[in-house]
């Protein structure tokens, strides 16, 4: 399984001390539910990703950080088949999902929360959640109740049109919708984008709880420091290529990563 790139030679398991050096082993030794290998993808003729490797283990919390235009969101969209696939492996739970329609990928157990415009504004909160379970024959009432338990404000607002909600509440609707089928892996594209600063920590807490309940999370975040503090592992992408991969706190402790990608 391993397409291991040459390691920098340092101990990737180093604890979060200052001046540790981040690892460049981009693959896991054990089983991964999501497995990307040598992935090339882009939009039309424009190639964005080249030879990207990425793993997410069962129940793991992985975040992708990097400068603007590094291809972070492109990785997620490629998993969902929304970009132009060029070459490489996209596997989920041991099977290739390349070429599947989004509705089939959802059936396989992946949920996706896009960055912006991620609710149906003209639909009520409840209808938004129902759409998340469209592929089921029956509306799963017990699952809707679970989502309401997780985000109690949504129960209060269930009849309200999602377009009239605040940014934070919309983000909850979007996550609730993606969680309707109890996915094994949740893809989150910049969940803190557009949120008021005092709501950002709350949003990250909610993501922690989703992950604690067993759902693996792959997240792209502008708010890189907070994301790396919270996650199990982080990938630093630069110009559509892997640069560093390590435990979040190791990446935070690496001087180069800090200086070049986290603003000092």
């Amino acid at each position, binding site marked *: 399984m391993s397409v291991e790139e040459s390691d920098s030679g340092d101990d990737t398991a180093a604890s979060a001390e200052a001046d540790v050096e981040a690892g460049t082993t981009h693959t896991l030794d054990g089983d991964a539910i999501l497995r990307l290998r040598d992935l090339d993808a882009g939009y039309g003729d424009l190639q964005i990703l080249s030879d990207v490797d990425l793993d997410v283990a069962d129940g793991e919390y992985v975040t992708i950080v990097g400068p603007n235009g590094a291809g972070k969101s492109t990785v997620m969209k490629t998993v969902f088949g929304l970009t132009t696939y060029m070459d490489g492996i996209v596997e989920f739970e041991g099977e290739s999902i390349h070429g599947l329609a*989004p509705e089939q990928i959802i*059936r396989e157990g992946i949920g996706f929360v896009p960055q912006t*415009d991620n609710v149906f504004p*003209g639909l009520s909160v409840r209808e938004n959640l129902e*759409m998340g379970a469209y592929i089921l024959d029956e*509306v799963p009432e017990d699952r809707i109740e679970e989502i309401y338990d997780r985000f109690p404000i949504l129960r209060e607002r269930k009849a309200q049109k999602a377009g009239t909600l605040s940014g934070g509440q919309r983000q909850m609707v979007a996550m609730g919708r993606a969680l309707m089928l109890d996915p094994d892996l949740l893809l989150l594209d910049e969940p803190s984008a557009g949120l008021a600063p005092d709501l950002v920590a709350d949003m990250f807490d909610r993501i922690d709880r989703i992950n604690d309940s067993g759902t693996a999370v792959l997240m792209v975040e502008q708010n890189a420091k907070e994301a790396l503090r919270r996650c199990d592992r982080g990938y630093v992408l630069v110009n559509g290529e892997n640069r560093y991969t390590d435990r979040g706190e190791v990446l935070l402790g690496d001087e180069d990563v800090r200086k070049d990608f986290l603003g000092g």
Partner: protein
Amino acid sequence: MGTTDSSIVDSARARPGLLLVALLGGLLLVDLAAKLAGVSLGPVGGALSADRLGSNLWSGVVIGLVIGLAGIGLSMTYSILSFANFSHGDLLSTGAFTGWGVAFLIAGVGDVPLRALLTVRDAGSATSGDIGAHILSTPIAILLGLLAAFAATAVVALALDRAFYKPMRDRDGISILIASIGAALIVRYVIQFVYGSDRRGVTASVEASNLAFAPLGLSVNAHDLTIAVAAIGLMLAMHFMLQRTKLGTAMRAMADNKDLALVTGIPAERVVTATWIIGGGLAGASGYLYVLLRGTIQFDFGWLLLLLIFAAVILGGIGSVYGAIAGGLVIGIVFTTSTIWIPSDFNEAAAFAVMITMLLLRPEGLFGGVTTA
């Protein structure tokens, strides 16, 4: 017409044009009151009976319901498939001819050759009056004709989608719009080839075709009533479908945000298929009802009606199903009540004038910004 809407009132200060329109509208209302009272003050007033106003309003509502029903499909394809479908008018013609073919078949079977019946033609000495398609004499024929109009037009709309629009799904709206003009020509001339190009009457004249509602002092044409009941029934069914069913919710979701619908797992092509079946079917039903209203049929009537349907849809706020219904009613009522002041040759002009005024004052339309919901 929504002139009490607070956002319109707010915009009065910013836009004096609104004041002008309100002034003109007020003047017409004063004149209307004077006419009804029989008072004549210079240019204002004259004579108008309450009966005539009532019948103008009623026939406006009936025409408006037909146009609104036709507008629903146009609005749906606009909001879900993102293009203005110029073949929509010819779908009305499709429904009218196939529906009336079935109505004739049932009403006139045995007396007239089948081929003549199915192609909605008079045959020899048997005129449409002899065939006797009328809601009072042959109600089953009229109702089954309506069903046939819906079904046949849904099939044609779906076939057009598979042949022309589906291969172009990822293209921009203008390219598909131009393709739809081509599709409109094909449909129109296939209809002309099969059914002929002459205008002919289709409804039988039945004695005492007015239904009297004595306690209310009303007397209503049976066909007008049929049209109103059928149109309102179909609109209510549409409303129920959009608001209460999973498919309807998915349609509204796709109208809101197609990309999000895709990653949410809504099967886009299935929703598109349903959109053509329902939108096309309603177009066919409205074409059939329009012919029931007019009593005559001609191969290009749908195309000629398309501009008025577009006016209704734009007036209501393009993309909104409820806007299409409201816009249809406004257009229909303007269409018939304008004859109080101007010659009836100009009543279409009056309808378009109202649409243009609306676009100037409220470019998003009556239900603007609301897509399908």
